[in-house]
Structure formats: C-alpha cells, structure tokens
C-alpha cells in the first residue's frame, strides 16, 4: 500500500505515516496507563515491607536490605483487624450466595416463563441503580433498629444484595435467553420436572454468568463503606472499611507502614480476580447488563 498511498490520512499524513504516529501515541499512552495504574499499588507494597520509622522520615523507593522488614505484617494478627477481615469475608460470601441464588431464579423465570408486567419489572429493576447508600442508609438505620437487624451482618448482606440485583438479574435474564430451550424440552419429554431441568440443564450452562454475577457481588461487598458505617456501628460486627478508619482515629500508635500491610492483604483478592477472571468480567458487560 505504501507506494501508492495518497496523503489522505489525518493531518495530511500518508497512511503509513499515520500508522507510525498512532503506534507512537499508543506506546506513550500504554506507558502512562501502566505508570499511573501500577504506581499506587507498587508504593503500597514497598511501604509495607519498609521499617515503619523510615517510612515517615524519608521517601524511599525500594526496601533495601537495611530497612527491609516483615514486622509490619504483625497487624494481620491484631485481634481487632482479624475480626474486621473475618466480618468482611462473611459479608462478601453471604452477599455472593444471596445474589447468585436470587438472580438465577429470577433470570430463569423472566426468560422462560410468561407472566404479565415483564417490561415494568425491567424498569423497576433498573431503579436499583438509584439506591444510593447514603440516601437509603439514613432511614434504613431506624428501620433495621426497630426490627433488630441493626448491628447484624445479615442486615448488611440484605442491603448489599439489593444494590447488586440490577446487574445480576439483568445478566442472568439475557444469558439464559442464549441457552436453547430445546435442551430443556427434551428433558421434559423424558419426564423431568421444570425444577429438574433448571437444576441439571440451565444452571450448569450458566457458569460464566454465575461467575460474572459473583464477581460483581464480591466487588460491591468488598468495597462497601457507607452501608457498613451506618448499619454496623459496633466493634464486634463491623467490616474492614469503617473498622480500620475508627481504629486509626482511636489508637495512639498505628504506624502507616502497618496500615499499608493490611491494605495490601485486602487488595490481593481483587488483584487475583482481575487477572484470572477478566474474561468473565468483560463477558458480563458485553451482554450489556445495564
């Protein structure tokens, strides 16, 4: 193409020149994204391996042998921190299970059974995106208090499941539509019930959608601060995000290097999920599960 390419590219460049310019722009952009994306994670990691006194005295880039230490990780044995991490894990698992079960059943019903008002249901479903934790949290505080769900992890799981619903149900709805109904029909001919065909045919085929829905539920539960701050005011049941903030404000001595150590521990699960399960994440969004 090069010999005959006329100067019709952007800025009057030839097509080859245009390719070169774009190649360079792409390389520069990639470098910027990598530096800005990786830098905070790198900095958190290196600080967590550096002597805590050095961290607040000077800016060090690499934990060299003299200042390298694993002592900061003692914070992972601190009873309060252990409790926060345990509560966060319980809430995340509870939310994932609730979201997957509820959205699978609803998705199946929406795509396979005919009942009225489906379109309005879709509208109501999308309303879920408007449940802002701060707007909902203030009144929910009193409601949970009067029915005894305040200070309980179940109360938080319910709240987080509700805000995960729009994405999860929409995803299942569209995904189950892609599974041929004929497979279920042949099972019914052999005498299987609708529940049997749902359990043995539809659910196993929904694996990618289940993983995507679980990942998003995990992200919401792992990330939550506002709901937990309002709905779990006591030490015993609170999760990591509000817990660590209260600990920092209350304790006389909590070195930043230790905070970075526990932060890294909280970052590892999402980091591993982002690397090993990114195809599921993208698949989830591709269905345009808005």
């Amino acid at each position, binding site marked *: 193409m090069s010999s005959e390419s006329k100067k019709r590219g952007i800025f009057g460049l030839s097509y080859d020149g245009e390719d070169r310019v774009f190649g360079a722009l792409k390389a520069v952009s990639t470098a910027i994204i990598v530096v800005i994306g990786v830098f905070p994670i790198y900095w958190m990691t290196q600080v967590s391996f550096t002597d805590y006194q050095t961290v607040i005295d000077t800016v060090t880039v690499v934990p060299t042998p003299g200042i390298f230490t694993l002592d900061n990780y003692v914070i992972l044995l601190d009873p309060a921190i252990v409790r926060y991490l345990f509560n966060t894990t319980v809430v995340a698992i509870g939310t994932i299970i609730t979201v997957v079960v509820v959205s699978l059943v609803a998705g199946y019903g929406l795509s396979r059974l005919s009942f009225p008002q489906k379109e309005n249901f879709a509208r109501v479903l999308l309303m879920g995106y408007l449940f802002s934790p701060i707007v909902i949290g203030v009144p929910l505080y009193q409601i949970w208090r009067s029915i005894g769900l305040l200070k309980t992890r179940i109360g938080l799981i319910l709240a987080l499941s509700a805000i995960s619903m729009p994405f999860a149900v929409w995803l299942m709805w569209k995904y189950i539509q892609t599974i041929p109904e004929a497979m279920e029909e042949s099972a019914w001919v052999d005498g299987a019930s609708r529940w049997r065909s749902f359990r043995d045919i539809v659910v196993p085929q929904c694996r990618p959608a289940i993983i995507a829905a679980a990942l998003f539920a995990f992200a919401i539960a792992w*990330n939550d601060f506002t709901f937990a701050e309002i709905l779990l005011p006591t030490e015993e049941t609170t999760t990591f995000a509000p817990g660590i903030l209260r600990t920092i404000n209350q304790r006389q001595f909590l070195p930043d290097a230790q905070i970075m150590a526990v932060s890294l521990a909280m970052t590892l699960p999402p980091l591993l999920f982002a690397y090993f399960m990114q195809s599921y994440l993208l698949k989830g969004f591709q269905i345009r599960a808005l």
Partner: protein
Amino acid sequence: MAGETQEPTGPGRVHIPWQQLPISRETLVGIGTVIPVLVLYFLIALLPIAFAIYASLHEVGTMNPEWTWIGIENYYRVMELSDFWSSLWRGIIYMVGSTLFQLAVGLWMALVLNRITRGQKLLTAVVFTAYLIPTIIVSLVALRMLDPAGGVLQALGGNVLGLWDVKAAPLGARDWAMKLLILIGSWKFAVFITIFTLAQLRAIPSRFYEAAKVVGANRYQMFRDITLPRIMGVILVAVLLRSIFMFNKFDIIWQLTQGGPGDATTTLPILAYRTVYNQFAYGLANALAVVMFLFLAVGAVLYFLAFNPSEEVETTT
C-alpha cells in the same frame, strides 16, 4: 412455549386444580421467581424512602424515640440552611468535574486497551484492579502518599513542582482539597467508563474496519463513522450513571477529608451524615435524604429517556 409440555404428576402429589384457577400455573411460578427480588427492593428501597418521607415530617432526635409531628417544617429548615445551598453547589462542582474527567480518561483508556497487541491481558488486569480495589484502600494509600511525613506525592508536589506547602498535607488546604478529591476518585472510577466502553468496542466486528480501509478511509473517519456510533449509547448511559453516583458519593469524601478543611469539600451526602451524627437531627437528615432522592429521580427520568429497557429485553441474541 413451555406451557404446552405436560407436567408429570407423581402419585404422592397433592392435586391442584390448575384448570379451574383464574391464572395459569406458569404465570404463578413466573411471578414466584421474581418475588425474592421484589422483596429485597421493597426492604431496601421502597420502605426506606417511604420511611424517610414520613420521618422528615417529624421532629426526631437520632437517639430520641420521641416523634413530634411538625409537617413540612423540616423542608423549610433545609432550604434555610446556609450549608444546604453551598453544599449543593460544591456537590455539583464535584459531580461535573469528576464525571467529565472520568469520561475523558476512561474513554482514552478503553481505546488504548482495545488496540494494544502485547501484554493486553496484564494491562487490562491492572486497569480492572483499580476498579475492584476497595475505596478505603484507595483513600488510605492516597493519605499515605500525601502525608507531609514521608509521603511521595506530597514531596513531589511540594519540593519538586512547588504546588503546595511542603510542611502541610495538601488535602487540608482549601484550594487543593476539592481538586485532589476529584483526581483521587477518578483513579478508581474512570475505569467504570473504560469497562463499559471496552466491552462495546470488543463487540465491533473487525471486518467493518477492513472494509473501511479498502475504500480508503483514514483513522479519524473510521473512528467517526464506525466506532463512535457503536459506543455512543453506552457512553451516554455510563455518563448518566457516573453523574448520579458521584453526586451521591459519600465514602471517598468522608475517608479523605470528612468534608473539610472547614466545609471546602462538604457535599450533600456529607451534610446529611453530619446532621444525623453530629447534630442528632434525624428528622432533618431524612428531609435532606428526600431532597437528594428527588435529584436522583430527575436523573432516573433522564436515564430512561436515554435508554429504553424494554427495547433491550426484546433483542434476543
């Protein structure tokens, strides 16, 4: 459809006279499948909003069980609150600034990630991680890096670039707090736009671009005529959602500045939270929540105008 198939009735089953009931079994089961979702929505959305409206009409202390009916008095108080209008204005600045910045950065990242050939998986993972990292971690790392005691960004901005005082944390400076909040938040939330756009970009068949190349289109023309029309819809939705989310953002602001210094970063969510826990005016806080909900409702109307859900459901792939 499924209704034509015979449901097997085992010997031990209770006989239900489906034929005589006013609605078919399928309809009943179908409604049954969505009931858990509706129950959750009722508990977490409808009930709190109704409760907020009810509580906003009363004088209620946060710790006080006494409710006194005062009608719409709380709404007058909200409007007369000098903090209300300034918080609303700051919230709008925060929302517009964040959304525009996130749109520009997010779109740029999506276009780069889509075209990259080597290390795509790793780079995508890096970008996705930013979105999956809990907000509290983003805040803690930002606070460390902006700490006057050994913070790297503090030193970079203070000593090298001379942007702010070397001795003080820039998040405590009036002229930097809001800008930094927008920048720090965007590190995480720009990826939301990237993920949405990237999924759409990957769905564009490459034969479109090959055909355009054959007829001699340049890159700008390809972007304008192939890429942009395909991602326009999703960008619109993502921007609307981001605006709504940023307007109601509480966590990252509370973690980084608690609304300070002074009231430089106090937006409506922060004001509502303070009204509950610092002024113990629970009724007034609920009035604020209702006002914020009305803003959300306007967002919702725009959202449905931009994106028709029933249209989406019909398109079976």
